[in-house]
Each structure stands twice: as structure tokens, then as C-alpha cells.
């Protein structure tokens, strides 16, 4: 209470902020349009050209420089081989064959058998249905490309991640070194390292897979380490007391006991890798991501939706199967199923499954019908169409045109309202003021909110942003980010308070939040592109949807953390519900509010960049253009740097502000 009261008793800060704003507006009115730093989309600065030159010289020397010759190129070639191998197996013509080695029938049966063997029969049915659905969508080949990429990424993650997890569990020092690295790998927007990666590994599937690996590896490392550390010390001691060696302890005691946690880690890694497929498509990684991306660029909502749906189906199947496998690895289940099934019976079942799989793979290897997914079946004289995908596409397209036509009267005003009354003014204020004015205003705001250090960091980051030559684009991105964050915080407080006070609301809403969080980011964009077209507003809405779940959960947890006794005391002293919320629960969870704002900002920023693809423009567009045009490579790199700088500044300022408001913001929120 005391803390919260302090926040409210400090009108000094609010007055200062208002003062800054008024001063800024006055100067803006006078100086508008002078001293701005703007750059047309196709223009570059000397810095960008120099980065382009760097790209060229790397390209020229990559076959002579030993670092590339013996290290980078090896990785690149190795990854490419691995991916090509998997593609030949699953998705692409291999050698002289016009079709992959294993056709659709083989893949469906293999997946089903794996799901049944390591999960249960329910997920086996799900796997069969899911994979057949991919075929019916007319997306068999891109789906298999995506599957191949995902397998490649996950295999690499597991091969490197599990041993690293073991090291982390065994050596304290190593844990201390690697934890911040893992944090960085997970929090840095993927966009940011994608372009530098192409500098090293070129545009192509290898870079896509490497980016997926970077993003997807932390969970398997963390959960392996966690699972090993959670093994009871007494059990390990028992092993030692019997004279086991270290490798024996690891192989016979710790790893088997940690198996379930490790599988959960693999599950999370698979999900993370899948959520990257669209982003990997930016560097020419094949598969569903490509389909989504191209459809978004040509605003073909039907195709984008169909492909997005396929990603979701793939994600659901892989998630359910690995979850079932992890549950099965729990020792109790283990005991039950093992006891019930006579080992001989089990071995028989395995053998049957093996034979069925072999037959299916042989059929799919030999017969065209079972190799390439047919778009129709001719049984006798009747023709059975199997092209569900075209139907989905046309339904979506008509739904879209209906929405654009008939919902326009609702969506139009919303879009225009936000664009004309919030986005445009803010954007103008930020990018049409003289750059030094904006600079000073932001640093002053940082000072008032977060103190000296925050101001210093903001000044440094903004200074560097000026150096990137992308001041205007950065300010446009900042404007969109700020607006989206305001909406996120408002939503966070509304839903968070509701969920925090009402367990049933929490129970009902939480699954939706979870779903929003795991869905690949690009899938969000599709319906909003349909509704609002390719505009900045679409980007903001998508970012809000992406970031709101995190903020809502944090606020809900904060509200729930307020001691029930305090709330009851307030109620018994005659507070109305509204008063309880505004005078007790919100002030007491000020820490969570600050954390929600901080995390909201970071998530929004990551998404605003993605939104750059669908008309959001600004820095996101610059980065994307860097992939497609080599003359804009340098500019793209600079834009990536500008995003990171904005992110650091926003993060630091909100963290300091939060600390002042009464609590340290821990970085790992969820």
C-alpha cells in the first residue's frame, strides 16, 4: 500500500511529463519539417553502401578465407546436405525419380505408427487424420518441405542441446555462462539475426534452418538441465554408493529419470522451430512458409489462410504426439502399460507395425498413386475430388470479400479513427520534428520516468539510431509500437483484472491466450489483412494480438497475488468493487503492471517488424527488402540494428521506471 501510495503522490513526475509534451508540441508547431532525417525506400546512405561492400567482399572471399573455408562453409554445406537428404526422402524429386523416396502413404503410415508406438492410439488417429488433411489441402509437397526443415532443425537442436543440457546440469560455472546466452537467443527478434546470418551462410535453406536452430534450441537445453537437476540427490547418491562411474550415473540413473522432462523440452523445441518456418521463408527456405509469404505479398488471403491452416495442423499433430510421448514416459504410466502388456505381445505388435510400415513405404516408393498425393480419385466411373484446398481457398476468399464489402462500415471507421487520430499525429510529431527535438524530448522523458541511467542509455541508443541513417523509419516504427503498447496495456488491465478476480473467467480465457501465443506469428496477419488490407493498422492489430496474452497473464497473476485478506479488509471497510480494484488491487500489483508494460513493448516491437511485410512499412520493410535486393542489404542490416537499439532503449527505460514504481522487473516473465 505504502509503495503504491508513493506512486500516486508524485504529481511532480506527471507535471514534468506534461511540460515536456507541451514544450515539444509548441516547438513542433514552429519548426515542423526542418532538420528531419528522411530517406526514400530505395535510397541508401554511405553506411549502407559500406555494409553492401562488406557483403560483396565476404561473398568474394568466402572460398579463400580460412575462417569461411574451414568453418562457416563446412557448416553451410553440411546443413544443406542434411536438408537436401531429408527433402529427397520426403518432399522433392530425388535423383532420377520424379517423386521423393517416400510418398504420402509411407509418410502417413510412418507418422501414425510412431505416434501409436510412443504416444497412444488417440494421437495415432490424430496424426493420420492431420497428415491426410495436409494432402487434401493440396499442400502435400510444401508441408513435407516444412516437415523436412523442422526435422533438420530439431535433430540438430537435440544433438547439440541435450549434451549442452547435461553440461549445464553438471557444472555450475557453465550454467552461469550459458543462461544469458539462452535468454538472448529467445528474446531477440528473429528478424534481427536473420540478415547477419545470410552474410555468413548465404540466402538458402541452410540459413533458414540455422535461424530455426538458434531460436528453438534453448528449450531443450534448459529442460534437459532442469530434468537432470531435479533427479533426487538420494537416488544419485544410491548409485554412487554402489560404485557407479560418472557415465554410468548419467546413462542409467539421471537420463532415464529425466526422460519425461527432456521430451517436454523436445516438444517445445519442435513448436519453436515450427513457429519460425514463415520467417525462415524470408531467406528462401522452402515449404509452407514460402506459400504464406508469397500469398501475403500478393494479398491472396485464401491461399495464405489455407497454408497457415496447414502450419497449424502440423503444429497440433506434432505437439499432441510429443505431449503424449512425454506423458507415457512418466514412470507410473510406464509401470501400468508395461505390466498390462506382456512383453511378447508387445514385441508382436511392434513387429506387425514394422511390417505394415515397410509395405506402405514400398507401395509409396513404387506406385505413383501412393507417391504424389492425388487431387482426385477415379473409382469406376465416378470421380471423387480430393482438392479440399481449393474449396478452403475459395471459401476464405469469398468470406474476405464479404468482410471487406459488408464489414467495411464497421472496420473502416475503426481503422480510420486509429490511423487519423492516433497513429498519424504521433508519427508526425516523432518524425517531422527536427530530429534533435525528438531526441531531446525522448531523452527527457526517459529521465523523468527512469532516471539518469535510463536517460543515458536512451540517448546512446537514439544516437546510434541517428547513425544508422534510418531515423525517420525508426520513429514511424516507434509510433506504431507505442500505440500498440497502449492498447496492449489497456487490454492487459481489463482482462487481467477480470481473470485475476474470477477463477472461472481465468479458466475460460487462458486456453485462448495459450493458443494465441503458440500460433505462428504470420497466421495472425492473414485475417487482418483480409479485414483491413495491407496497412499500418493491420500491423498494429496483429501486434496487439501477439502481445496482449503475455500482458494479460502477467496482470492476472499480479492481481491474484494480492493477499485475499487485504482485499477482504478493504471490502469489509465498505469499498465498492470498483474501489477495491482501483485502490487496492491495481496499486498493489503495480509491479506486475510495470512488467506487463515492459513485456508488452518487447513483444509488440517484435511483431511490428513482422507487420512491416504487410504494409506496415518502416524498419520492418527495410529489413525485408534487404533479403530480396542485394543493393538494399546494407540498409536492411542497419534497420535490424535500429530495431535492436529501439528495443534496448524501450526495455531499459520501462525497467527503470518499473523499479522506481516499486519493484524489479524480472526479464523472464512467462
Amino acid at each position, binding site marked *: 500500500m505504502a509503495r503504491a501510495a508513493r506512486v500516486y503522490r508524485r504529481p511532480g513526475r506527471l507535471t514534468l511529463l506534461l511540460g515536456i509534451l507541451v514544450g515539444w508540441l509548441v516547438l513542433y508547431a514552429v519548426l515542423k519539417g526542418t532538420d528531419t532525417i528522411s530517406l526514400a525506400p530505395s535510397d541508401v546512405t554511405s553506411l549502407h553502401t559500406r555494409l553492401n561492400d562488406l557483403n560483396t567482399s565476404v561473398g568474394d572471399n568466402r572460398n579463400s578465407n580460412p575462417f569461411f573455408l574451414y568453418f562457416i562453409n563446412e557448416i553451410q554445406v553440411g546443413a544443406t546436405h542434411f536438408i537436401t537428404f531429408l527433402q529427397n526422402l520426403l518432399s522433392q524429386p530425388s535423383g532420377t525419380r520424379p517423386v521423393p523416396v517416400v510418398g504420402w502413404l509411407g509418410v502417413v503410415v510412418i507418422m501414425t505408427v510412431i505416434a501409436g508406438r510412443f504416444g497412444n492410439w488417440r494421437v495415432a488417429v490424430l496424426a493420420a487424420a492431420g497428415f491426410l488433411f495436409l494432402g487434401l489441402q493440396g499442400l502435400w509437397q510444401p508441408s513435407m518441405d516444412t516437415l523436412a526443415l523442422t526435422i533438420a532443425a530439431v535433430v540438430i537442436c537435440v544433438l547439440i542441446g541435450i549434451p549442452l543440457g547435461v553440461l549445464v546440469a553438471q557444472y555450475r560455472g557453465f550454467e552461469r555462462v550459458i543462461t544469458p546466452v539462452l535468454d538472448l537467443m529467445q528474446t531477440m527478434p528473429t528478424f534481427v539475426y536473420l540478415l547477419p546470418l545470410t552474410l555468413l551462410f548465404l540466402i538458402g535453406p541452410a540459413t533458414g534452418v540455422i535461424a530455426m536452430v538458434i531460436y528453438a534450441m534453448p528449450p531443450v537445453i534448459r529442460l534437459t538441465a532442469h530434468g537432470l537437476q531435479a533427479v533426487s540427490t538420494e537416488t544419485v*547418491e544410491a548409485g554412487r554408493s*554402489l560404485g557407479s562411474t560418472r557415465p554410468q550415473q548419467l546413462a542409467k540413473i539421471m537420463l532415464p529419470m529425466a526422460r519425461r522432462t527432456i521430451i517436454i523440452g523436445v516438444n517445445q523445441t519442435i513448436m519453436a522451430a515450427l513457429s519460425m518456418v514463415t520467417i525462415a521463408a524470408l531467406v528462401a527456405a522452402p515449404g509452407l512458409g514460402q506459400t504464406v509469404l508469397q500469398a501475403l505479398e500478393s494479398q491472396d488471403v485464401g491461399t495464405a489462410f489455407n497454408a497457415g491452416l496447414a502450419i497449424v495442423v502440423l503444429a497440433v499433430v506434432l505437439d499432441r504426439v510429443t505431449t503424449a510421448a512425454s506423458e507415457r514416459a512418466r514412470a507410473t504410466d510406464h509401470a501400468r502399460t508395461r*505390466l498390462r502388456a506382456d512383453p511378447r505381445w508387445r514385441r508382436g505388435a511392434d513387429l506387425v507395425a514394422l511390417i505394415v510400415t515397410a509395405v506402405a513405404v514400398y507401395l509409396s516408393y513404387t506406385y505413383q498413386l501412393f507417391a504424389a498425393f492425388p487431387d482426385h480419385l477415379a473409382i469406376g466411373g465416378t470421380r471423387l475430388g480430393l482438392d479440399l484446398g481449393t474449396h478452403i481457398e475459395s471459401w476464405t476468399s469469398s468470406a474476405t470479400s464479404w468482410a471487406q464489402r459488408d464489414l467495411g462500415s464497421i472496420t473502416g471507421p475503426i481503422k480510420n479513427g486509429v490511423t487519423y487520430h492516433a497513429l498519424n499525429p504521433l508519427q508526425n510529431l516523432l518524425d517531422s520534428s527536427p530530429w534533435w527535438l525528438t531526441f531531446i524530448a525522448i531523452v527527457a522523458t526517459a529521465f523523468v520516468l527512469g532516471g539518469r541511467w535510463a536517460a543515458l542509455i536512451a540517448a546512446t541508443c537514439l544516437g546510434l539510431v541517428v547513425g544508422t541513417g534510418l531515423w525517420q523509419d525508426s520513429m514511424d516504427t516507434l509510433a506504431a509500437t507505442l500505440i500498440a503498447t497502449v492498447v496492449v496495456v489497456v487490454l492487459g488491465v481489463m482482462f487481467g483484472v477480470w481473470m485475476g478476480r474470477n477463477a472461472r473467467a481465468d479458466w475460460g480465457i487462458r486456453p485462448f491466450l495459450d493458443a494465441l501465443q503458440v500460433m505462428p506469428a504470420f497466421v495472425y496477419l492473414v485475417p487482418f489483412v483480409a479485414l483491413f488490407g495491407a496497412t499500418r493498422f493491420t500491423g498494429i492489430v496483429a501486434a496487439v494480438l501477439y502481445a496482449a496474452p503475455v500482458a494479460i497473464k502477467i496482470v492476472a497473476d499480479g492481481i491474484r497475488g494480492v493477499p485475499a485478506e487485504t482485499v477482504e479488509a478493504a471490502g469489509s471497510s465498505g469499498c465498492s468493487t470498483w474501489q477495491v480494484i482501483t485502490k487496492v488491487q491495481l496499486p498493489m500489483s503495480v509491479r506486475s503492471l510495470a512488467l506487463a508494460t515492459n513485456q508488452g513493448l518487447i513483444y509488440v516491437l517484435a511483431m511490428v517488424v513482422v507487420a512491416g511485410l504487410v504494409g506496415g512499412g518502416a524498419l520492418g520493410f527495410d529489413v525485408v527488402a534487404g533479403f530480396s535486393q542485394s543493393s538494399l542489404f546494407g540498409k536492411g542490416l542497419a534497420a535490424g540494428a535500429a530495431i535492436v537499439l529501439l528495443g534496448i532503449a524501450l526495455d531499459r527505460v520501462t525497467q527503470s521506471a518499473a523499479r522506481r514504481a516499486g519493484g524489479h522487473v524480472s526479464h523472464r516473465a512467462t
Partner: protein
Amino acid sequence: MTAHVDQGDPTAVSKPDVSAENTRPTVSPGRRDPDVADISVRGLWKVFGTARTATRVPTTPELAAMSRSELRDRTGCLAAVCDLDFDVAPGEVFVVMGLSGSGKSTLVRCLTRLIEPTAGTITIQGEDITRMGDRALRELRRNKVSMVFQHFGLLPHRRVIENVAFGLEIRGMSRAERMRRATEVIELVGLDGYQQSYPEQLSGGMQQRVGLARALAGDPGVMLFDEPFSALDPLIRRDMQQEVIRLHREVGKTMVFITHDLSEALKLGDRILIMRDGRTVQVGTGPELVGAPADDYVRDFVREVPRSQVLTLEWIMREAVPADDMSGRELAPDVVVRDAVRAVLESTAPVKVVRDGRLLGVVGDPEILRVVAGS
């Protein structure tokens, strides 16, 4: 060590005259002849803390003399075990007792260096453990010393028989042979029929039988128990104690048994070492501890004990005086009071306590009644 016995307190049961050296009960000291001992511990220290400060504690007299809390305040180190000396004879059940935190678990883990001792020597069956290399230590753990744990420490992903055979598997014994041996031991601990179960399908008592079987499987000479029955409910605990007594009779291992339950200690232990804050307070047989507690800490421990069931005649007899009627029965000095009650009360003459035909003292109604009424 022996000095403790002399500091008897006035409230204790009447004791043989101190001056009568020859009639004093034999007190078993902590130290015995190391050549005949199975386990011999000298100057054992375990100090938790940064390695540099910790190793200094045992060698610096000033630090070594400090109490645990004083040491912690001064150096930040925690002395879990301080300067312990004791010997365990072959085939003996040696019990270590103490309140929570007194260092029992640390002590028993130091014996096979599951926890690395800070100072001191430990000799097991003639070999100095503290100087062993990793390989020799593993051999020792595989063949000579095994341990039973409070929370069993079983592997949930393995069947009972595989758990029992685990130590043999580690040694590299062939599958057929270790399964045969495991089956034998499972029978020995009374778990026949549960070979194929998983640990969590068994009750706590049965799980601890698995732990026991696992420890027995390698046929070690020495077995260590760290509060093996504390997690079990009282009835099962009694069963398991009987089991250990039976096993001890059948296989005759040397045992070091940690417990904080005095009745368990008295039931199982040939001798009992009482620890407080890492140090020895008293070592002795059950009757010695009950009859002559070294200080208030021990007295507190033994307060609830039914004395008549623990004390023997030598602890309550008095010297014969000429006025005594010497026509009573003769009994040995190690007869438990409870078993002598009837003999003493039924006759008018006091019972004569005789060893090897020599009269040690007499026990009359007042002596018996004092014990029986006092408990």
C-alpha cells in the same frame, strides 16, 4: 571416553560403588583395537564452506575448539562433523544417534566418501579410505560397503529385480548371473513374488526391503543405514527392525545404523554413539547410556526409556553388607531388570549377582522397586 560414565548424576538409578573397581560394569569405549576393528575412524572432520577456510578449521586449534554456531559466525563455515573417533568391531551393529542436524548423515556419507571428509582417517577392513583413488574407492563401494537410504533412492523406471541387480550390473556381472543373485536376495528380504513390479507399486516398507536387498546383493562386509525406517509408519517400522535383526543374525554383517529413535537404537545397537552438533557426546551400550548418561543432552534422550527393560542388574546392585541374608538366588550381572523382578520380589532374601562364581553385589526389593517405579 570412559570418564563419561563416572559423571553419574544423583537422580540416576543407584549405581555400583565407584571405588569398587572390580564390580564396575565393563564400559565399552569408543576406541577399540583398530587391528581387530572393521571400521576405524580417527579425527574425522567435515566442514562445509569454501575449500580454503574449511580445511583450516581442523588444523587450527582455536577454530577447532569453537562451537558450531561460533564457527559459523566467525568463518561462515559449517562444521557438520567435528573430530570424531570410534571403532566398529566385525559383526557389530553400531548405532549413531542425534537430533536433526547433528551431522549423522554427513558422518555416514563420509565413511565411503560420498561426502569428502575435510580431515581425519577412516580405515575399513584394514584399508585407508581417505587415501584411495577413484578406482579403488569404486571397488570398495562395489564389493565391501553398501548403503540403505532414508527415502530408498530406488530407480522408478526399473523393476524391483532390476533395482536389486543394479549394483551387480554396475560391476559388469552377466545378466543371467545377476538375475539369479537378485532373485536370491529378494527371497531373503521376503519380497518373493514382487520381482516384476515397479517400485511405486509397492508400499513404503516393501520399497525399503528393495533398498535392503539392493544393499545386500553385492554381499558386502559392511552395511550403512541412514535412518532407513524414519519414513515408515510405526508398525511397518517395527517389522523392518525385526527384519534387520533377523538379517544380522543370518548374514552377520558389520552395520553402522543411523537413527534418531532411541528405542530403535536400543533394540538394534550393540553400542550407540550419541552426537550433538557434530561432536561425540557419549559412546556405550544401551544400559550404559541409560544407567549413566554423560550429560543432560543424553539424559533428555533416555528420559522416556522404560529403564526396567534396558538396565541390567549390574547397574542397580549394591554391595553386600554383612547383615544381608545370603540365601537368595544367584543371577548373572547382564540379566535385564524386568526379567529379575519376579525372582527378587518373591524371595525375602536379596538376589545375589554373580559372575564366574564371584559375588559382585546384591539386588533387593528397594533396588528393583526404584527402577520399576521410576520408569
